Structures are given as C-alpha cells and as structure tokens.
C-alpha cells in the first residue's frame, strides 16, 4: 500500500504527455507569481467584487408568465398586442360563500368588500361583482342598462327580483355566480401597464406651465395637447408614443397583497372568502421564492461549512473556500443586476448551485495544498505544486460544468437561458477566484503545516476502501459492465416514456391555500384561467355582419362541448352574447329574442345604442372601429399540455369558421403556457445535445485519445439516463424545473471523470498498469472526489427541505444524479479502463 509520500510525486517529475507537462509547468510558475504579488492580486479582486457587487441592488425577482419568454418571441408579441388593445386578460377571483347570497346583510357586506377592494387596491383596472355587474333589460318601453344593485333593494320584493334576475342571467353564471348560487365572485382585472413614471401630479403639470404660455410648456412636459386640434387632429395618428411598459411583477404583487389584506378583514363565518387566479398564483410563487432563496443559500452555506470542517479540520479550510464561493456568488448576482437580469423561477437555484459548484474546485486545491504543506514544504512551493498538480483539472472541470450550463444560454425559454448565461459566468468567476484569489489568500495568511497522527489512521481505513474498490471494479469488471448495460437499458426504456408538462400550481403542496382555493374556484365557478381568441375582420364595421356574429355565436356554443381529459370550458365571453343581450332587452326580454339579429343595420344600431347606454363594457371586447373582437374562454387551471391542446383546437376551429372572412389569433395565458411548453421541450433537447457534444469533445481533448475519451463519457451519461428513466417509470412529468437536472448533472458529474481520468492518465503513463493507476488515482484524488460529491449532493439535497414540490424533486434528482456519477466513476470507469486495456493487449 502506498503511503502519502508516494501519492504525491515531486513537482518536476515527468508524468504525462509533454503538452500537459508544459501546461503544468505554466501553472506552477503562475502559482509562484501569485505568491509574489498576492497583495496586488487581492486588491484587484476586491475591486472586481465591489464593481460587480454594486449591481446587487438592481437585482429583482420576476415570476411573471411572460417573463418565461424572450421579449422578441412572436407569441409574446401577439400577447402584448392583445394587452395593448384589450388590457390584461388574467383574472383575480375573489370567491365568497355564504348561506344565502341574496340575504340583505350578505349583499351589504359584499358591497363593503367590493368598495374596500376598489378603494385600497393599486393598479386596479376593473372590479365586477353582483354589486356593479351589468344588468340590461327591457321594462315596458324602457331599456335599462344599469348595475345590478344600482338601486339598493329595500326589502323582500326587490330582493326576490334581484335574485330572479341574477339567477336567470347567462352572463352571470359561472362568472360571478356559481350554478348552485352558493358562491359569488368578485372578478378583478389589473392594469395591463405599469403606472411607474406615468402618473402626473398637479404640480408636475404646473411645473410644465412655467412662463406665461401653455402651448409649448405643456406639450413638452406631458404632450397632452401634442397636436394642434382641428384639422391636424383628425389626420394624424393618435398614438405616436412607443411601447408602454407592462405591469411589473412588483406591481402585480402590490395588487395581490392589497386585495389579500382587504380579504383578511372581511373573511368570517357565513362570509367565507377565497382568493385565486393566475396573478395570485404568480405572487405566491414569488413569495415562496422570497423565502426559499435566502433559506437555501444559508442552508447550503452551513452544510458546506460542516463538510469542509470535517474534511480539513482547519479554520482556513472552511473560511477560504467560503470566501471564494461567497464572493463569486455576490459578483455573479451583482453582474446580473448590472445586466438588467432578474431572478426568475428557474434562476432561484443559482445561489445554492454556485455555492455547491464553486466550493468543489477549492476543495481540490486545498486537499493537495494541505497535504504537500504537511509534508514539510513551504507555502510558496506548496502553492506552486498544487496549481501544477490540479490547475489543469480544475480548469477542465470548470469548463465542462460551464459547458453544461452554457448549453441553456440559447434556450427560447428566457429564464432558462438567463440561468445558462448567469451560471456559466458564475462558474467562470469562481474558477478565476479559485485559481487566483485562493492561492493569494494562502500566501497572505501563511498557513502552518500540521502533523496529524489520527489522520493517517483514518486515512488507512479510507485507503483500504479505495483499494477494495479498485480490486472490485477490475476483478469484477465484466459484472460491473453488465450491470451498467442493464441499468442503461432500463433507463432508456423509462426515458422513452417521459411525458412533458408544466403546471406551476402542482409545485405547491396540496394543503396550501392557493392550491385549495384554485381547486375550489375551478369547481364552483368553472375556472379562473383564460384563453383568448382575437377575431380580426380587417375592415371597419366588419363585426356588424350577421354572418360574422352568427359564426361567433355558433363557435361559442360549440366550445362549451369541448372535450379534453384534463380541461373543460367553463365560460365564454363573446361580443355575440352582448348583442343577444341587448336584442333581448329591446324586445321586452322575450327569450326567443336572445338571438343574433338578421339585419346588418339593426346590429349596427343595437351596438350604437349599447355604446350610448352609459356602459363602457363594449370597450373591453371590441376595438373602436368594430373591426376586431376578442372571445374569452374561461378554463380551469390545468397542465400546460392541456392548454396546448386547447390552443390548437381554438386555432383550428376559428380559422376554419372564419376562413377568408377574418384572421384569427389565439393568445392569453393558455397560449403563453403552450408556447413555453414547446419552447421548453426544444430547449431541453437542444441543451442536452449541446452539453453532451461539447463535454465529450473536451474529454477527448483532455485525455488526448478519441477512444478513451468516448468511453469515459459512459459514467457521465449513466446518471442522466437513470434519472430520466426514473421519471419515465415513476410517471413524473418532465417540466421546466426538472429538465434542468440533465445538463446540470452532466456538467457536474463530468468533474469527477475529469479528475479521475486526469490522474489515471498520469499514473498509467508512469506504471503502465491499470490496477496500480486506478488505485493511485483513487488514493490521490478519490477522497477529494468523494468530498466534492458529498458537498454538491448535500447542496442539492437541501432542496428536499423546501415546501415547493418542484424544488424537492429537483434537489432529489440532481443530488442523486451526482451520487450515481461518483459511484459510476469509482466502479464503472476503472472497469471500462480495464476492459479497454485488455482488448488493446489482445489486439
């Protein structure tokens, strides 16, 4: 059994291929350089950290759905165009249940709740409830278009009338009133656009009126009178102004939290309130991020510290790697802030990920450094030797990890490409800090060597284990290979069954209020999500055509019969409904008059009447030229894949119905989710292929042998295949979160292989014997590989403590993949080398 002395050969001893010797020599020289100039280097690093870190205050959180797509994504352009025309389509639903909705005290409380929300909620566009919902009806020769509770009921008779009207209204059903009339809803729409920087006070205006004339002053400040009225006004476009800024994620949260605080005041027995809708889900995701982000950063730091303390049993062994990773993290996050990137759902894993990854390289440096130092060498030589020994391997492992992450950078899913970009930069920053700052700090604090007798005893146990592992993997190489092949086959057949899907609601635990409330509202009010279809006739007054209105009406009826295992159509809002409503009211409420008029002129006149009735509801569904209209399809919360099916159905059916008459665009949250799903699948395929190719290429370059390079990828790919296989066999969907596992795990798993192969080649070159080379490899870097794996795996396993299902699964899968990778590198890699060697000899 080799002792520590012969584990670490003298620095100048030729061990490997000449090019590698030259590189190692460069690293040694670099180590001495760092030692000499450690003060200057540390000052430069402090400057870099301050420069990057100053971007930290600019870093924001963003959980918005549209944040998942790049700004230039065509689906997002259609969505933004829709919002520009019709406003934000996402609904916030406040469902209220009580023993009798039409009881006077219930209605009074509902009115108070309605008014409180209206008064206290920022960024509110519109709130509709039984209090103010449109009530269109004919009474004798009078047409009434008013709010349902405009005239407050004074007693039994008028209450009964309201109940009858409400229960009989097709408009209210499943929008603000459940079919069994036990639940009523307040439907809240937020502003589509940010109010930041657009609110002018009287003082702002007056400040613009400096001097003695308004003509230029007002124009430059607010542009209110930016065109000469009269002739000019009628010919010029009304809106030369550019794109408005959409409602920010922070504003969405302000709104949701304001509604929540009002609800908390009103919720009581007999008036029970539930809040749901996609803006609420987004805010809850954000809240969970706000708690998880610091929590897991701290947990990661603690576990890493603990493991470092256990491994090195030196204060410097804990503090130095921590300094490297913490400063790398701060610099990366600060750089993200400078670049205007925000932390989105997938990027929230970044801090703990960088901590776990960054510490790995430091461990490899310190393991060699302390050992060489403890052998009685000075700091300067120890640093030089360490960098010469491990510098190349550390650069290669960082580059392979970066390659795994960079494969995400081109993703059509914005936060995933952000993650790819930021994590790649983070890994590279950590690499530079590890190679430059860590040695500079070691030079600065001049660590003393320690002689540890117990350590060698412990080392013997571990050494014995590594020797056993070496013998086992080589003696049973056939069995190891057979088992690996078996596992690979099982993994691949499982992976073939993997289904794609994305459903952020399922990330919440079942007992979370948002989960419960969404389920309740989906059941009682038939959904809180929407798909939108824009029907554009391409000409002014195109919607007056009876054929167009009839087709809209027919499609709406047909849509109620939409069949899907995971989705139903709960409610449809269409211009044709408003037309039927007004036609019926004009014809003394006769039920047969709830129909589309046959005459184009009558349709035009009825809409004119509606426009002039004091209700602005028409603005929400049709443009001012009556050229295009929206059809809103209210659906329950469902998996993205169900939304994708619905979107495809809507596209097909509306296009078929309006072929040659109108153009169709399907948008809204459902369409966005559909797009995100397609983009994710594309992204995943892309990044897995890129990561595998780039990393394979790097392995071949590092090893300098095509065959061995290719074979060495097997222990790396096995963990990914097994994880995917597990998902397939367990019937777990591959979503935006767990799809990250593959590339990240590949990037990390390959680190072990790089260290293994790097050392194996060194020792094989020396001895020409596989068994000895493997044993010496495991004895020299095996411990560091095991420790880094423990650190990384623990870093990911800490996510299993999260309250969000997606984080739990992500942590468990990535942690397991890394552990599997270590086992594969300890058992499969030696077996493969042995088999390869045998064949070479036979050949």
């Amino acid at each position: 059994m080799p002792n520590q002395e012969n584990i670490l050969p003298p620095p100048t001893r030729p061990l490997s291929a000449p090019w590698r010797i030259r590189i190692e020599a460069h690293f040694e020289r670099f180590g001495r350089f760092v030692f000499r100039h450690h003060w200057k280097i540390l000052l430069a690093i402090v400057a870099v950290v301050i420069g990057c870190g100053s971007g930290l205050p600019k870093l924001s959180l963003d959980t918005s759905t549209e944040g998942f797509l790049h700004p230039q994504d065509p689906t997002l352009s259609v969505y933004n165009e829709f919002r520009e025309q019709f406003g934000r389509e996402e609904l916030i639903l406040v469902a209220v249940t009580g023993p009798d909705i039409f009881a006077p005290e219930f209605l009074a409380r509902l009115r108070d709740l309605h008014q409180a929300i209206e008064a206290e909620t920022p960024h509110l566009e519109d709130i509709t409830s039984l209090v103010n919902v449109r009530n269109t009806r004919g009474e004798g020769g009078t047409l009434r278009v008013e709010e349902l509770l405009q005239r407050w009921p004074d007693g039994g008779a008028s209450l009964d009338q309201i109940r009858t009207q409400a229960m009989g209204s097709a408009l209210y059903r499943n929008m603000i009133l459940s079919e069994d009339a036990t639940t009523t809803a307040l439907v809240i729409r937020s502003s589509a656009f940010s109010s930041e920087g657009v609110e002018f006070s009287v003082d702002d205006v007056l400040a613009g009126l400096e001097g003695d004339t308004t003509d230029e002053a007002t124009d430059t400040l607010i542009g209110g009178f930016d065109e000469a009225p009269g002739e000019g006004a009628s010919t010029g476009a009304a809106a030369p102004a550019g794109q408005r800024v959409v409602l920010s994620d922070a504003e969405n949260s302000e709104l949701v939290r304001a509604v929540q605080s009002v609800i908390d005041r009103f919720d009581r027995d007999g008036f029970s309130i539930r809040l749901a809708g996609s803006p609420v889900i987004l805010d809850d995701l954000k809240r969970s991020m706000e708690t998880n982000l610091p929590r897991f950063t701290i947990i990661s730091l603690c576990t890493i510290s603990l493991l470092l303390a256990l491994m090195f049993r030196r204060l410097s062994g804990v503090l130095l790697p921590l300094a490297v990773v913490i400063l790398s993290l701060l610099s990366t996050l600060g750089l993200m802030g400078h670049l205007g990137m925000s932390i989105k759902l997938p990027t929230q894993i970044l801090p703990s990920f960088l901590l776990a990854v960054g510490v790995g390289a430091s461990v490899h440096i310190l393991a060699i450094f302390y050992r060489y130092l403890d052998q009685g060498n000075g700091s300067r030589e120890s640093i030089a030797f360490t960098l010469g020994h491990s510098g190349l391997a550390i650069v290669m492992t960082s580059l392979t990890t970066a390659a795994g992450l960079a494969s995400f950078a081109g993703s059509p899913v914005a936060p995933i490409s952000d993650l790819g970009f930021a994590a790649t930069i983070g890994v590279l920053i950590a690499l530079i800090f590890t190679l430059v700052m860590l040695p500079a700090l070691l030079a600065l604090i001049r660590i003393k060597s320690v002689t540890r007798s117990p350590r060698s005893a412990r080392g013997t146990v571990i050494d014995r284990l590594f020797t056993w592992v070496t013998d086992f993997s080589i003696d049973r190489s056939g069995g190891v290979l057979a088992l690996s092949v078996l596992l690979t086959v099982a993994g691949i057949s499982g992976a073939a069954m993997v289904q794609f899907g994305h459903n952020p609601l399922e990330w919440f635990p079942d007992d979370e209020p948002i989960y419960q409330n969404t389920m309740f509202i989906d059941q009682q009010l038939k959904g809180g999500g929407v798909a939108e279809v824009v029907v554009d006739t391409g000409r002014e007054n195109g919607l007056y055509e009876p054929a167009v209105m009839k087709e809209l009406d027919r499609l709406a009826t047909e849509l109620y019969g939409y069949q899907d295992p995971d989705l139903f159509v709960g409610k449809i809002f269409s211009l044709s409904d408003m037309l039927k409503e007004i036609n019926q009211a004009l014809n003394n409420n006769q039920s047969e008059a709830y129909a589309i008029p046959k005459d184009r002129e009558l349709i035009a006149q009825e809409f004119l009447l509606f426009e002039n009735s004091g209700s602005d509801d028409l603005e929400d569904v049709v443009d001012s030229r009556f050229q295009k209209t929206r059809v809103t399809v209210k659906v329950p919360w469902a998996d993205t894949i169900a939304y994708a099916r619905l979107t495809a159905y809507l596209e097909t059916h509306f296009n078929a119905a309006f072929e040659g008459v109108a153009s169709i665009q399907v948008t809204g949250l459902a369409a966005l989710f559909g797009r995100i799903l397609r983009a994710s699948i594309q992204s995943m395929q892309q990044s897995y292929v890129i990561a595998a190719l780039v990393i394979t290429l790097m392995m071949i370059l590092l090893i300098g042998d095509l065959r061995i390079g290719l074979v060495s990828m097997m222990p790396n790919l096995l963990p990914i295949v097994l994880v995917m296989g597990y998902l397939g066999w367990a019937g777990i969907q591959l979503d935006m979160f767990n799809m990250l596992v593959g590339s990240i795990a590949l990037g990390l798993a390959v680190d072990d292989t790089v260290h293994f192969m790097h050392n194996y080649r060194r020792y094989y070159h020396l001895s020409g014997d596989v068994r000895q080379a493997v044993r010496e490899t495991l004895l020299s870097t095996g411990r560091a590989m095991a420790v880094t794996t423990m650190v990384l795996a623990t870093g990911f396993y800490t996510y299993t403590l999260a309250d969000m299902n997606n984080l739990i699964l992500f942590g468990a899968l990535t942690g397991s993949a890394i552990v599997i990778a270590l086992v594969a590198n300890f058992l499969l890699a030696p077996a493969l080398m042995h088999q390869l060697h045998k064949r070479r000899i036979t050949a």
Partner: protein
Amino acid sequence: MKRSFFSLTLVMTAAAGLLFAPAASALNAREIMQRVDARDDGDNGTATMEMILLDKKGNERRRTLRTFSKDQGDDRYRLMFFMEPADVRGTGFLTYDYDDPAVDDDQWLYLPALAKTRRIAAADKSGSFMGSDFNYADMTRKDLDLYTYELLKELTVAERRAWVIQAVPTSPQEIDQSGYTRSLLFVDQATFLVLRAIHWMKEGGGRMKYLDASSHIEQVDGIWVARHMTMTTKQGKTTLHRTTLRFKQMGFGQDLDEGLFTVRRLEQGL
C-alpha cells in the same frame, strides 16, 4: 341626473355681454366659475356635428349627426339624428335635460332598423358618450357647490389670457359621476370659455384626459363658440384614444317648434 349632449357646446359659448366683465384680477376662482356657468349660451340652436374618433394605431372612425336644441325654462330639450355612417343613418336621440339635479334626464332612442322607439334609463354618467373620449358628465353643466375651486395662475393659451383653475369634487359620488378626481380648467379671461382642461381620471394608472377647445373660437349669431374640440385620453405620455368634434352649419335663434322635440317627431326621422 343631469345630462345633455349639447351642454359642452354651451359651456364653450359666452354672451357677448360678458366681454364687458369686471377686471380679471377682481375675481376669485369661484366667481370665475360662476361666470362660466352663468353665460347665455344661446337658444334654438342647430348644428351638424362631425365626430372623428382616432384609436392608438391612428385608425379613424367618423360619425356625423344633425342636432337641434331648445331651452324650456331652465331645462333643455335636444334632438339628434345620425347621418353617417350609413349603417346607423336615421338613428335618433331625444333628450330632456332637466336643470334639477335630483331629476333624471329623459332619453329616447329610435332605431330605424327596428322601427321602434325605446326610452333609455342608463345610469353611469362617467360612461363614454357615443364611444368617444367625451363622457356624459363632460356634456353636463356642473353644480358649482359640488366642487372646490382654486385659482392657480394666469397664462396665455392660444394667444388668449386665461386663468388656470383647479376643480376638485367634494364627494366620492361626484367623482363617480364625473369620472374625474380633479381637473385643471383654463378659462378665457375675455369670453369665459373653457379653452383647455386637464382631467385626472378616477381609474388612475396615470390615465388623464386633455380637452382642447382653443383653436377655432368664433362668434355665431352673436354667441361665442368653439367650433373644434379635441379630447385626448392618455396614460402617461401614451395617447390611448382621441376624439375631435367639429361643428358646422351652426345657428342660434332658429325657428324651432316645440313639436320637434317629441317621440313622434323622433320616429319620423330627419
């Protein structure tokens, strides 16, 4: 509820006699607004009103109406018929705008395609007038007691000296009715016309409306009128929508019979 389609034109008119008003500096904000409110705005008026609606993308939509109005004591009767577009030609509105704020206006609508008249009872006064940027409240004479007024400064608008007066509704009800949380009014010192106005909309989110009536001020039959008026709805610096009203063939003191302002006449069309 007070509502009138023509009040706006009337708000914009002023009796020639007011040109001999006392020196400007002697008036406070409230007094100025009383002058604005108290003008003789003409009687037995007729006009052709062209309404030009412009959306964000510059798409234009035109409507033309022929209008008639007659004072009946403090109340005002109005009749208007759509002439364009063709789909709605002949559609008519008859309105009795009562001075007493406690009494709801009467309004009848005649749809030629249905050959029927319906009385309309609509509630929301802050709602759009015919899909334009003007709302019903813009068309209504304000009850001065429902506002506090403050004279902020004097300046020149379209070569006319004007007071800038801030008007703030004193009750949430009035905010609901008018649709505005506050307004700045630019009042012509010579004619007591409101030349321009800036309204803060109750919906918030930076939404404001800008009225400009300063460009075509003329005397018609001895009464000052703004022939062109533009109301622009903006959010911040972004224009959301714009409406221009142009009045042609205006006349006052016409021979308008009371029988013109009846449902029977409404149903006969133009």
